[in-house]
Structure formats: structure tokens, C-alpha cells
């Protein structure tokens, strides 16, 4: 479980996050949604420690991450897996080497054990036999899946996904969403997904945090978000013509 207590963050005097508090429960897919530029990615980067917060606390299973030194944070970070928007695979390494990288850095596994673990992770994301490809030889969807395999290779307790569907077609997006949901339940992880994809919200959003103007504007489940009367959320959820038509048809 990750608890965020009253965190604020500014860049060059501009307040991006304003006093945000929330809890991301274990074994659930927690979504952070909102329009572009509202602070979703900044919030996630603050939670994982890539940005320092100006005030407030971040607690990983009641351990105060914000008060930890760089070295103390390393212990928590080994329990975090992260899927970046652009996948962030290491260009010079093959798919297998990318997945094995955290294992080779932090475990005493033999090469054979690491390969077995990498194969298990690649199998889990349906990438059997792609071990020797370079990231440049993989499609966008494959790169995301390799990044997921790398993120789960260390059996993390926490999984962060920054816009996992960006640049993917709708069908591949569903594959990635389902994969994130499946591994969250399977490994009982605390998963936090940043997205603007309404399809993801409706498919996998166990807990949804809507950020607007840098504030925690609304929280709820995927069922609640479709029935809310909050104007900002309605503007966001039904922004597309397709969703507006769908809502009209459902009302009829």
C-alpha cells in the first residue's frame, strides 16, 4: 500500500501539485487520470522519488519514503517496477538482457537462473522466443511488453505505469491493459497507472484518482465515474464525440 499525505510540488514558482492526499491499495489497479498538464506524471515521479516533494509525506507500507536518504530509498526502489511512457529499454541490450538487467545488478543468481526468470517473465507477457531481438527491432507494443517483463523481473511489490497505452492502437492497448490487470492480481502488487485513455478507465480502474488543477479533484471506482455529476469529470470522460453519443444512447 502507498499512502500520499498532503504533497505539494512547484517548478520555478509554479505550483503543479497542491496538497494531494490519497491511498493506493495493494492488489488493485489504481489509475491517475486527468487532462494533460494537470500534474499526473509529476505526482507519479514524486511518489517514486524522481522529483523531491516541497511538502508532505509518501509512505510505502508505513515507511516514510520522503524522509529517507538516497541509500535508504534504494531498498524501496528495488521493490518498485516502472513502465515508462517511451518504454525506456536499454538500446544496446537485447530483450533478454534488458529483462535480466535488474537481476544481474541486485541478485546473486547464476546466468542460467537469470535466463530462466527472464524466460518466465517474457512468457508472461507473451514474448516467447524474442529473447535476442534488440529494442529497435521490436514494435511499440512489444517494447511495452518487454518493459513490463523487465518491471516484474524482480517480483516488485509496487508497479508504476506512465501512460502504458500511448502510441498504441486500440487493440494492443487492451492487451497491455489486461496484462497490467492480470499481473497486478496474480502477484498482488500495488499498481499505479497514469492514463488519459477512457477505455483503460472503464476496463481496469479499480480505484481512480482524478487530478485537476494540481488537486485531488475526485476519487472513486470505474462504476462511480460513469455516474458522477462532477462537471470537470464529465467534461473529461465524455470529451470525445463517440463517448457523448454512447452516453446519449445509454440514457435513451
Amino acid at each position, binding site marked *: 500500500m502507498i499512502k500520499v499525505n498532503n504533497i505539494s510540488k512547484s517548478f520555478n514558482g509554479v505550483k503543479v501539485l497542491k496538497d494531494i492526499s490519497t491511498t493506493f491499495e495493494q492488489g488493485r489497479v489504481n489509475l491517475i487520470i486527468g487532462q494533460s498538464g494537470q500534474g499526473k506524471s509529476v505526482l507519479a515521479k514524486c511518489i517514486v522519488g524522481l522529483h523531491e516533494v516541497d511538502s508532505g509525506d509518501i509512505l510505502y507500507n508505513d515507511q516514510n519514503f520522503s524522509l529517507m536518504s538516497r541509500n535508504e530509498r534504494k531498498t524501496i*526502489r528495488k521493490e518498485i517496477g516502472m513502465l515508462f511512457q517511451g518504454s525506456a529499454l536499454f538500446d544496446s541490450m537485447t530483450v533478454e538482457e534488458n529483462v535480466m538487467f535488474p537481476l544481474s545488478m*541486485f541478485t546473486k543468481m547464476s546466468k542460467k537462473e537469470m535466463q530462466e526468470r527472464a524466460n518466465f517473465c517474457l512468457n508472461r507477457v507473451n514474448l516467447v522466443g524474442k529473447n535476442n531481438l534488440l529494442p529497435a527491432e521490436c514494435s511499440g507494443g512489444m517494447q511495452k511488453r518487454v518493459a513490463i517483463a523487465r518491471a516484474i523481473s524482480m517480483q516488485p511489490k509496487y508497479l508504476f505505469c506512465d501512460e502504458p497505452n500511448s502510441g498504441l492502437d486500440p487493440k494492443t492497448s487492451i492487451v497491455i491493459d489486461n496484462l497490467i490487470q492480470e499481473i497486478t492480481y496474480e502477484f498482488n502488487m500495488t499498481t499505479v497507472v497514469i492514463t488519459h485513455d477512457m477505455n483503460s478507465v472503464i476496463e481496469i480502474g479499480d480505484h481512480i484518482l482524478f487530478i485537476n488543477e494540481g488537486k485531488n479533484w475526485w476519487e472513486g471506482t470505474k462504476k462511480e465515474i460513469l455516474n458522477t455529476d462532477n462537471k470537470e469529470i464529465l467534461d473529461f470522460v465524455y470529451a470525445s464525440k463517440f463517448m457523448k453519443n454512447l452516453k446519449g444512447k445509454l440514457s435513451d
Partner: protein
Amino acid sequence: MGMINNIGKYFIMLRYVFSRPEKFKIYKNRIFDEIEIIGLNSIPIVSLLSVFMGAVITLQTAANMDTPLLPVETIGFITRQSTILEFSPTIISLILAGKIGSNIASEIGTMRVTEQIDALEIMGVNSLGFLVLPKIIASFLSFPILIIYSMMLSLVGGLLAGIQSGLCSQSDYVKGLRYYFHASDVTYGLVKTFFFAFLITTISSFYGYYVKGGALDVGASSTKAVVYSSIAILLTNFVLTQIMLV
């Protein structure tokens, strides 16, 4: 103010670069990779430059020896001194600042803008140590060898130019090379080389690591890396010469 900030940030970066590696075996493999990039891949350009540099020094020395009172061996002597004291350590380092410096800055800068460095940090890897330390060690191992190799080729280039142009014979040239030779001159050249190797790798890494933005900014950081590495080399060269030779 910005420059003072950058100098401060540079020294803070060095602190993390030299912190204890997570796993030495991984670093060892990376050092070998870096030796290939920094050292082996630089051999062709160093060879080409060194031969022509030596040849030109010989020709210019000969062309400027107007008085018959100077013995012909002076050509070999001046070529040796110029090469060992200045041309090989400094000019080759400046060239390597361009080649290696831009390579390092663009490599690390691209990793920054594609979030690969963030990925390393999230995993709990000390990204500065992992990326920069192997480059420093590889440059310490490669640069002295490259510079000694350059000295040798430059002297050979001078010999070939001298013989081919008929300005001096082989025996005159070699006699000049041996004349009043101090091994400390080579030591001075190599000491400078270590400083230059350190400056090129760390300054270029600094500009790559702290780049913000996209592809254009990576290009700009690469240019800055080469410019500031070259300035640092020239300043350090002056200071070291004052300390060691004067």
C-alpha cells in the same frame, strides 16, 4: 551565477560517480565495452593525425632553419620535443575531446531524454556511477596508450617526411631524436594525459547527464561538452606546464 552553479553541480556529480559500485562484475564488463569505444575506435583517427602532425613539424622545422650553424639533427630534436611535450598529449586530447566528448554527451543525453536514466534510478542503480565511472576508468587505461602510440607514429611521420623531402637523412634524424633526451618529458606528457582523460569524460558526462528537453537539446549539450572540455584542457595544460616545467 549559472557557471558557479554548474561547477557546484559538477563536483556533486563526481561524488556520486565515485560512490561504491553495486556490483563490480557488471562494472568490469562495462569497462571493457568502454575501452573499445574510447580506445580501440580512436586508433584510426589518432594514427592519421599523428603521422601527418609529425611530418608537418619536421617540414616546418626544416623550413625555418635558416642558419647553417644549426646542425641537421636539430630537426629530429625539435620534432621529438614538440611531439612529446605538446602535440601528442594536447592536440590529440583536443581531437579526442571532439570525438569521444560528443559521443559520451550524446549517448548519456539520449539516455536521459528517453528516460533510460530514470529507469536505472527507479531500479535502485546509481546511474552516475554505472554510466560514468567505467568511462573514466576506460579513458585512464586507453588515453596513455593512445598518446604513446601517437608519439611514436608522429616521430615516424617526421622521419618519413624528412627522408622523402631530402631535408635530413635517417641517421641525422635519429641522432636528433636521441639528443639530450629526458624520460621526464614523457612523464610530463603522460601526467597531462591523465588530467585530460578525466576532464573529457567527466565534463562530457556532465553535459549529457543534466540535459533537459529533446533531440535538439542533446545536440546542444554535445556541442557544449566539446567546447568546455577543450577549454578545460587548454587551461589545465597551462597550469600543469607552469607547475611541472617552469
